[in-house]
């Protein structure tokens, strides 16, 4: 038995899951339109494509393809960790259709447009017995 982990809490509720099993990747919380089938992130009450109100909650991802990226030379907003003084950002196309924009794990040379990435949780600070986590994407293949 390892030491008890702190309880992981999302930096903002309603956007992604925090699995009890820390070996499982998080999923993004989205919406599917029951009339036209379009998927959205984040959740929404009305379909942006056909304006139907018949929408249901779905979980999206956890994998997607990198559409574009950058590496920002500033500290990650809200993070207290020194390794976050610079950070990658990517736009990721999910297989269900939505494009999402989130921080990336790794360094600029790890990224390549079109590569597959997977969502993961990353702690940014501790608050009492809780660990505040964000969702980000990590390359699951090496950049050529």
């Amino acid at each position: 038995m390892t030491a008890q982990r702190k309880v992981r809490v999302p930096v903002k509720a309603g956007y992604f899951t925090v699995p009890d099993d820390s070996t499982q990747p998080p999923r993004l919380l989205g919406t599917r339109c029951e009339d036209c089938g379009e998927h959205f992130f984040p959740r929404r009450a009305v379909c942006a494509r056909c304006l139907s109100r018949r929408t249901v909650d779905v979980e999206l991802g956890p994998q997607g393809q990198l559409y574009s990226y950058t590496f920002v030379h500033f500290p990650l907003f809200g993070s207290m960790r020194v390794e976050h003084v610079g950070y990658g950002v990517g736009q990721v196309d999910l297989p269900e259709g939505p494009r999402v924009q989130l921080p990336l794990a790794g360094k600029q040379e790890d990224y390549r447009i079109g590569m597959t990435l997977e969502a993961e949780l990353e702690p940014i600070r501790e608050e009492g017995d809780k660990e505040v986590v964000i969702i980000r994407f990590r390359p699951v293949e090496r950049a050529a």
Partner: protein
Amino acid sequence: MNDVAVLGVGMHPFGMWAERSNADMGLAAGLAALDDAGLSFRDVQAAYVGHIFAQVMSGVRVMKEFGLTGLPIQRIENASATGSAVFREACLAVASGRHDVVLALGFDKMSAMIQQSGATTDPAFLEDAILPAGFFAMWATRRMHERGTQASHLAAIAAKNWNNGAKNPMSQRQPDAPVTVEKVLASRMVAWPLTAMMSCPIGDGAAAAIVGRPEIVRKLRPGRPIVRVVASALQSERYDRGHLFVGPVVGPARMTVDTAREVYEEAGLGPKDLHLVQVHDAFAIEELEYYELLGLCGKGEAEAAIERGDFAPGGRIPVSTDGGLIARGHPGGPTGLAQIWETTLQLRGEAGPRQVDGARVGLCHMMGGGSVCVIHILQRD
């Protein structure tokens, strides 16, 4: 746009003005516009005021500096496009026949906003983690992937705008020596491949325009060329698969294409009729994309056009002639009105060292976060 002319324009220089209030700067810009038009504040029948960062009521309060005449005052806010949206509402108020003389005023102190934000903003993460520079850097990375764009193309745009700013007394950035591509590339990396000199500064300032019936120009300023507002359009986002809902600064590229089509149709003009253009160049990659989205060059041709100097002073269609957001600055509320100031002076032939020879038609394009695209076309009779 039915019979609307720019009667007068005025600005307070953009810059870091720690000792000056929004009221100081707004009054200076508004009085300059009144003097330019040859009008008294008593002639102004309505005012539209734009600010992003100043507190609630600031618009109406600043207007009291001009005098208390009971005129209707309305505050408009549309992020970076605030000044453009203010100008549009003023034009519509004249075009509708409701008013003959209307003031459009924009002001902001972005420097004060930046100082406050660190202490008061709760890190919402999803919206805040991606800085504007990071968002537009991803436009650049994608463009490089698709078209082989080099960082030097972006630096060439930035250098052009810095050097244009050196010729504009209202410009925030006033380089004392010509800015080179190498200098832009060597400046601090903000979000790869965008460097600090490819990005607009934080600043303060104010700008104003008075719009009204064209015959007022003939009466008050005989012999002055009449600058008409021949088209105005404001569009918001349309949905396509892959739309980004969280974190983008502005919507998809087609916003500029769709809004441009609307103004070109309204004006009965096309991109080939333009003599100068101002765009939302908060970052150099934006200006590059807008060349194509506005139809100033063909798809995939922007890099070659930059290398030829098509959009530089003396080129085919000079762009960001006043320095653009990158050099002239981008305080927020007044930015779109600074574009109207520049275009009006250019079309009158009063732009001094920046003058585009024979300029008769100018286009002003702004994006506002959220997002909206606002475009106006001004034409000299």
